[in-house]
């Protein structure tokens, strides 16, 4: 299992039976494969479908049924197709139980930056700002370190995605809850210690009394 898959597997444990979940493109989209088929979980894709299913078998791809990354998907029984205004009405209106987003930076107040590196990479925010602002629970799934630098920073120097703090950060090294705008370390990857996590982390964080091992 790759580090990304371990992150995805851990995020999947946060997803409760029968909830409505939006997964961002990239790493977050891996979460779906760790959610049991019988869990009653429905996946929403902001391009307009509730009840996103797995990639179709070869020859059954339909050009009118894709995910937010443009990849072919299926629709599970009981799926619904909606227009973009309804899709973002659901997102902004708090009808999405959980969104899982990728991140460029999360800072020690729990703020997320994930849509632009000014002057360098300007993909645009797509649906990320609405999701980070409106979903009931915002989980960020990202690697802890990129190119030798901690992505869990003191203060985001990249433009924020939302002024609302996220709820949970899952990396390949640790899990942090955001409590009262502060990061609290609650789990560490097997083989690590809170100290080793701290060494790899620019942000200051508190450590919970009962730090567990990520599974």
């Amino acid at each position, binding site marked *: 299992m790759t580090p990304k898959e371990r992150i995805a597997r851990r995020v999947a444990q946060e997803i409760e039976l029968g909830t409505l979940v939006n997964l961002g493109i990239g790493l977050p989209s891996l979460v779906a494969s760790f959610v049991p088929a019988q869990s009653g979980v429905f996946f929403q*894709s*902001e*391009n*307009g*479908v509730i009840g996103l299913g797995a990639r179709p078998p070869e020859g059954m791809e*339909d*050009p*009118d*049924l*894709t995910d*937010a*990354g*443009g990849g072919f998907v299926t*629709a599970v029984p009981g799926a619904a*197709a*909606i*227009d*973009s*205004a309804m*899709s*973002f*009405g659901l*997102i*902004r209106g708090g009808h999405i139980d959980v969104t899982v987003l990728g991140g460029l930076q999360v800072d020690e107040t729990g703020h997320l930056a994930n849509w*632009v590196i000014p002057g360098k*990479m*300007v*993909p*645009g*925010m*797509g*649906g*990320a*700002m*609405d999701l980070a*602002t*409106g979903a009931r629970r915002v989980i960020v799934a990202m690697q802890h370190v990129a190119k030798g630098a901690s992505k869990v920073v003191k203060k985001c120097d990249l*433009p*924020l*995605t*939302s*002024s609302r703090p996220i709820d949970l950060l899952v990396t390949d090294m640790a899990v942090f809850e955001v409590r009262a705008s502060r990061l609290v370390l609650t789990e560490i990857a097997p083989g690590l210690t809170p100290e080793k996590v701290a060494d790899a982390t620019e942000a200051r964080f508190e450590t919970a009394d009962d730090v567990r091992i990520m599974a």
Partner: protein
Amino acid sequence: MKKVLSPGAAAELVPDGARIMVGGFMGVGTPRRIIDALVASGKRGLTLIANDTAMPGRGLGKLISAKAVRRLIVSHIGLNPETQKQMNEGTLEVELMPQGTLVECIRAGGMGLGAVVTPTGLGTGLEEGKRVIDVDGKNFLLELPIRADFAFIAARQSDYLGNLDYSLTAQNFNPIMAMAAGTVIAEPEHIVPVGVIPPDAVRTPAALVDHLVERPQ
């Protein structure tokens, strides 16, 4: 009955410099034959309102590669390096908007609302130059309605009156944009007799549609 146009005739209606909105999400639900005709007709200086610019060679990516667009209002350009290149070269002006705000502003433009009052973007760099209003002690961004001269709409079916339905995620921005332009041109995959689309299945009523583009020959 609506006049059924060829894609070329539809493109001819659009002057250089026009402000157009086009449905689609990463090329899915984009009116392809109209886009091809706009490219073939060598349009210049368009303002394009859309969710994204897909990728080079696909959907709206073709319009970008053809250098037909001078100004872009979108939520995402991450998968089209050509868009980023023209932006960096300064030949393409890009305004990025959150996807939910973008679609809601288009809806407001089509539905006669004066503004959109949204929490999205508040307290971020997006606030810059925008009005923040306090409603009952909570702050929101006030975003302006968006309209265009032309809306190009991809639909699954149209009847000869112009009632439209859509297919799955090919729906996306299409029914919203169909309300928000001076001239609305729909490109259905099929044109069917009046009455074939039941009243409850119509997503865009015929009264909103000005022209239909003929089926592929």
